[in-house]
């Protein structure tokens, strides 16, 4: 049963990943798929910057430009940032709480495949008369007027991948509540686990409004309903509300896990307990709560009236307070620590000023009266890239270097890692800092070109050059990944030497059952505590016994694939194609058939017996 030690053929490995329900392998799937979409979204960004590098450029047409910016935003948020964050949650959170897997391994796999097929579906729009072109926010007034099928791809693709995200969130919530190891109280949970917890709660309450918005838009475009058709009594502002009730929590869904990753990094590489642990937990929960009270700050210019604008302005500014608490706690964690500047720590230190800059422009935007000036200019573009790239993407890159050894058993090269960091860091500020000024000077966002002589030329060129640096950074990272995988030098439990939390007490990568015996947690930074007392590993909380594990299954793949097929049918049904209805029916039959199978066929999982676990021990003895 020591599967991780065996060599397998390509076909067997592929089948293994198609049917896996193991959170560590699902994490790798999320990392690969999310990484792929990150590169796709990055290419789209490069096209945008090429088009805008010089005035009156005709690298792409106006219509194609709209498609590119829409797909860039949608891909980066839904198909790159979220799945990459999910990759680390899956890889690390169950280990951090001392669990053998998540609460619903089958649902975990299903969530991945739904996201994956939703994402593929959305991107296939490029090959069928055009991608969506109404912006990533897909405002109904634009979306309803959009010709072709682009917006239909958006609506259907996001519904499929959204369900995947939603069930993933529920799964994490239950895992954290029910599956913590003995002694792992809530106030001993690592900050990354805490942020996974709060993020999952945000997902649970934020995704349904998006789903409803998408369904209404689908009904309008496909079945002739009138939600957004003013002449029939409809109202497009409903879409704006539904979208932003989802949309603002969504930005915290992205950034809270980033905060979590950085909290781990600051403590690890300052070799100090996280400063103000309980206030960090409190701030995370408060941000999550306030995140639902501020959506209308995206709609200051919609005309909700001064009272609504004032309330939402104040609520928005209030979020700055818990965010500030966090910033000070990170700084004070480094204070007096013995700081080690590893690659992850580079990102963490760079994150602080970058993210603060984004927060400051956020508070500026939150002043409703001033926002009439900033709204829909490059100032907003600069703001959200400072928080999303400076916060989320930095965290993803940092997490990639930090957790690579835990996920793959080998370390990324530190020198190359630092080169990536510097290229990306310089490129990022070069691209986006100047955009604040472009916005203040009056350059609107989402325009496909501008005229010479308006004072926008030099700044846009600088911005485009910055994008080159960022691309180089990503290329070095990819090179690093390939070189590391080829060399494949194996590492032990705690390759950084500074691990504090439970995941570093396990082999890299951990065996498929994670913990042979559940560990006894005696405080915050459980593994660090044991190390400080001179122990090699955790004290077990139970005698060696049989372990119950879930069975692998191909059904998650099939369920998601059925919806993918049905979505194609639904899309072409609008053109009255005769084959479309059978395609919908076949797709739904596949999905519901697989769900039916799942529900009538008992799945009790299997047991790993004590004797096999002891053999595993001997295996390792031989290898070492």
């Amino acid at each position: 049963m020591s599967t991780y030690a065996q060599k397998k053929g390509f076909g067997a490995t592929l089948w293994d990943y198609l049917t896996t329900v193991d959170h560590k392998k699902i994490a790798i799937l999320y990392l690969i798929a999310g990484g792929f979409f990150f590169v796709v979204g990055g290419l789209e960004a490069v096209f945008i910057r090429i088009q805008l590098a010089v005035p009156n450029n005709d690298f792409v047409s106006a219509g194609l430009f709209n498609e590119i910016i829409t797909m860039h935003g949608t891909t980066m948020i839904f198909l790159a940032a979220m799945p990459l964050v999910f990759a680390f949650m899956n890889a690390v959170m169950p280990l951090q709480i001392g669990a053998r897997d998540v609460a619903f391994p089958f649902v975990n796999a299903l969530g991945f495949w739904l996201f994956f097929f939703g994402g593929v579906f959305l991107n296939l729009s490029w090959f069928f008369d055009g991608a969506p072109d109404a912006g990533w926010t897909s405002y109904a007034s634009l979306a309803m007027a959009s010709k072709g099928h682009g917006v239909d791809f958006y609506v259907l693709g996001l519904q499929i991948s959204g369900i995947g995200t939603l069930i993933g969130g529920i799964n994490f919530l239950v895992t954290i509540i029910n599956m913590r190891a003995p002694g792992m109280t809530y106030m001993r949970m690592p900050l990354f686990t805490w942020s996974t917890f709060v993020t999952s709660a945000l997902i649970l309450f934020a995704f349904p409004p998006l789903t409803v918005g998408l369904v209404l838009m689908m009904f309008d475009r496909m079945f002739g309903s009138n939600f957004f058709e003013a002449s029939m009594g409809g109202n497009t502002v409903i879409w704006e509300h539904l979208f932003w009730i989802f949309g603002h929590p969504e930005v915290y869904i992205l950034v809270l896990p980033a905060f979590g990753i950085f909290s781990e990094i600051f403590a690890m590489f300052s070799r100090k307990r996280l400063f103000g642990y309980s206030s960090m937990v409190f701030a995370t929960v408060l941000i999550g709560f306030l995140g639902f009270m501020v959506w209308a700050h995206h709609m200051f210019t919609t005309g909700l009236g001064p009272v609504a604008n004032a309330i939402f302005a104040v609520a928005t500014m209030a979020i700055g307070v818990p965010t500030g608490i966090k910033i000070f706690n990170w700084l004070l964690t480094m204070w007096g620590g013995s700081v080690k500047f590893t690659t992850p720590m580079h990102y963490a230190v760079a994150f602080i000023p970058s993210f603060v800059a984004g927060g400051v422009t956020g508070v500026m935007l939150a002043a409703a009266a001033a926002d009439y000036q900033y709204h829909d200019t490059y100032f907003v573009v600069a703001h959200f890239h400072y928080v999303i790239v400076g916060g989320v993407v930095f965290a993803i890159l940092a997490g990639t270097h930090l957790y690579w050894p835990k996920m793959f058993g080998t370390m990324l090269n530190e020198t190359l890692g630092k080169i990536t960091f510097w290229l990306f860091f310089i490129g990022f500020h070069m691209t986006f800092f100047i955009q604040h000024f472009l916005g203040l000077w009056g350059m609107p966002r989402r325009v496909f070109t501008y005229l010479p002589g308006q004072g926008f030329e030099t700044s846009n060129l600088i911005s485009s050059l910055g994008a080159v640096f960022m691309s180089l950074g990503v290329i070095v990272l990819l090179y690093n990944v390939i070189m590391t995988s080829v060399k494949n030098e194996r590492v032990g439990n705690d390759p950084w030497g500074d691990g504090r939390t439970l995941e570093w007490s396990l082999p890299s990568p951990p065996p498929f059952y994670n913990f042979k015996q559940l560990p006894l947690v005696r405080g915050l930074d459980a593994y660090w505590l044991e190390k400080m007392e001179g122990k090699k590993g955790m004290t077990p909380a139970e005698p060696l016994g049989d372990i119950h594990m879930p069975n692998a299954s191909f059904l998650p793949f099939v369920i998601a694939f059925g919806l993918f097929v049905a979505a194609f049918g639904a899309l072409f049904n609008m053109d009255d194609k005769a084959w479309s209805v059978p395609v919908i029916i076949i797709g739904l039959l596949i999905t519901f058939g697989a769900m039916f199978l799942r529900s009538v066929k008992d799945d009790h999982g299997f047991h790993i017996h004590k004797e096999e676990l002891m053999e595993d021990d001997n295996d390792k003895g031989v290898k070492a």
Partner: protein
Amino acid sequence: MHAEEKLTYETWPAEPEKSTLEAKNKFLGFWFFLGGETVLFASLFATYLALKDKVPDSTHHLAKDLFELPLTFVATMLLLTSSLTSVYAMYHMKNFNAKKMNLWLVITLLLGAAFLVLEIYEFNHYVHEFHHTFTSSAFGSAFYTLVGFHGGHVAFGLLWITTLIVRNAKRGLDLYNAPKFYVASLYWHFIDVVWVFIFTVVYLMGMVG
């Protein structure tokens, strides 16, 4: 306790829906799922309220012209009663009496089906008597979407509970299927609660204008 173990009336635990880790997970996960569903319906309610009586011109009928109390009252009674009968079913589940549980579940199903029949009749009535359709106005779209989503949930619940009864008809209760029955009954209560809100917000508030 293992889920597959054969139990007797004496060894059957007091809370069979929560006595294995899998069951606890399912129980909690389902509550969270219902939390998400609540937000889903809340969004639909908000949309409905924003679009209530929003019609292109005065030839269209408004809420106060459409709804009739007797019909919706009967529908409400059917659904409320079905919630009660599902409680009886769970009572027998906790007492390890699969036969009686199934009997009460079947009664629940019949009441739910009767509710659906009434709803279909109602929709049909609006379409033919009042030309109030899904596409005739924003009001129509919002009405059929909200009430239809609920109806869809009822239909799914009927299929789900039927499948459960048929699949477990021969083998009786164990700790593997008891939680399944339990969450299905939770779902059924949830549908009922949503209907209470629909009855109030759509029908009662609709009739007062």
